[in-house]
């Protein structure tokens, strides 16, 4: 089996988009977590 480019329906692009969006969101969540702890360290 191989990829038939003529029938490319954008699924590959979609997979890249899915990964990119998911990683950005996970990064945001980690940054929020870190930011609140760092801010509390600085304050205490």
């Amino acid at each position, binding site marked *: *089996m191989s990829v038939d480019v003529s029938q490319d329906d954008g699924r590959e692009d*979609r997979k890249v988009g899915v990964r990119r*969006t998911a990683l950005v*969101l996970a990064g945001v*969540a980690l940054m929020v*977590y870190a930011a609140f702890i760092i801010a509390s360290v600085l304050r205490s």
Partner: protein
Amino acid sequence: MSTIAAEVNDHAHDDHGPAKGIKRWLFATNHKDIGTMYLIFSFAMFLVGGLMALVIRTELFQPGLQFVHPEFFNQMTTMHALIMVFGAVMPAFVGLANWMIPMMVGAPDMALPRMNNWSFWILPVAFGILISTLWMDGGAPASGWTMYPPLVLQTGDAFPFLIFSVHLMGISSIMGAINIIVTIMNMRAPSMSLLRMPIFVWTWLITAYLLIAVMPVLAGAVTMLLTDQFFGTSFFLAAGGGDPVMFQHIFWFFGHPEVYIMILPAFGVVSEIIPTFARKPLFGRDSMIYAASCIAFLSFIVWAHHMFTVGMPLSGQLFFMFATMLIAVPTGVKVFNWVATMWKGAMTFETPMLFALAFVFLFTIGGFSGLMLAITPADIQYHDSYFVVAHFHYVLVPGSVFAIMAGVYYWLPKWTGYMYNESLGKLHFWLSTIFVNLTFFPMHFLGLAGMPRRIPDYSTQFADFNMIASVGAFGFGLSQLILIYVLLTAKKGVPATDAVWDNPEGLEWTVPSPAPFHTFDTPPEVLPPLKQEQHA
């Protein structure tokens, strides 16, 4: 290469059904299976949390200490809240999201199906740990679901398990939220523009962003509790130069958006149901989306309305009072739009519509008591009284929980392929509505008369209303047995049509009932017109 090829022309995918036996559920990646598991888990937690509520109401049936030790009473209020918030209401909405969002946007599944499996299976582990603390030395956590230090640091052996289970719940929610956002942003049928998305999808998109913004804040707060307890830090310990009030700020920076996490998807469900049974397009569709976004934004700048009695500068009191009151504006827009949708509609009152209507009335009562609590000088009187208990139970029970029930009745025929028992559904509705009011309405009077919350005993002047509330609670609990029966016999009725209801809007009604294991393997080319457009 071959793996990509297999996924690209997914013939291999088209014809395989679900796996057999326990593996189907343990290794589930199908959004419908995972949605079903979320809903069943949530219902189980609803029953466990409900039993705890009945322990509370049994003790409060009469003044004096009768049935349980005060320490155990406090464990019940704490565990009841944690289980209902994180185990019942939130997972129910995630279950509805899993089932419906891919079908509503014309996607074959959630964007990240294996992560979806993790998001779900972490939850039974988290709640297994949390519930097991009941049998530990020192008992379950008893500091209230808000976990304020220094009190929470007096928890016995349960303490690290509490923190760990909250971390797990947070991770599960964040992964679920990422999955929902990515599904909506990257997996929509090409012809479905953002503004065309169903309102349920919109409210969940906004909710998922809220989750990603605030669940890490809760995780940070409980991590600091953990290090304060075991690693010698003093973030919140006054003796070490720390500040216990800082915990409250951090907690409520999470906590207030959290209450909107529990109500925005409910707004979405109700906005799907009312147009169907009023047989009119949703009034002010776009303004519904803008109002939900507005509410989400405002929910970040009102947290200190939970802390008026802690003390803050006058300017702070004024800011948080007015910001809180501002939320009434977009909320009013929504209520107005629901009413305007029904105006001159050809209404019928099937069970989902009954629950949705009760939602509009009774959630609004909770909104009004919220407005009263937002008034700083008034709140200084009402704070930590049963008035607050009345407020948040109105928004959460005939609010969020009724919306979940409305959604379950609405989509059940699509899930099972059969109509549920409508007369029993209506009976369930009427009994629930009568008893929910019997339980929670008297709490307004108790609060205004000065009865404090989270106590196992009270002055005799509060006896009558407490007795009424306890009777109501048992009635409400027993009424849920009807729901159990309706769900168990859900496949015994007449077969449902694909549309199920009278010309409802949305892609989910274009697939067969029951919805096949795989839907929209190829995105739908032409979307059905919105009702708005049909009328124009």
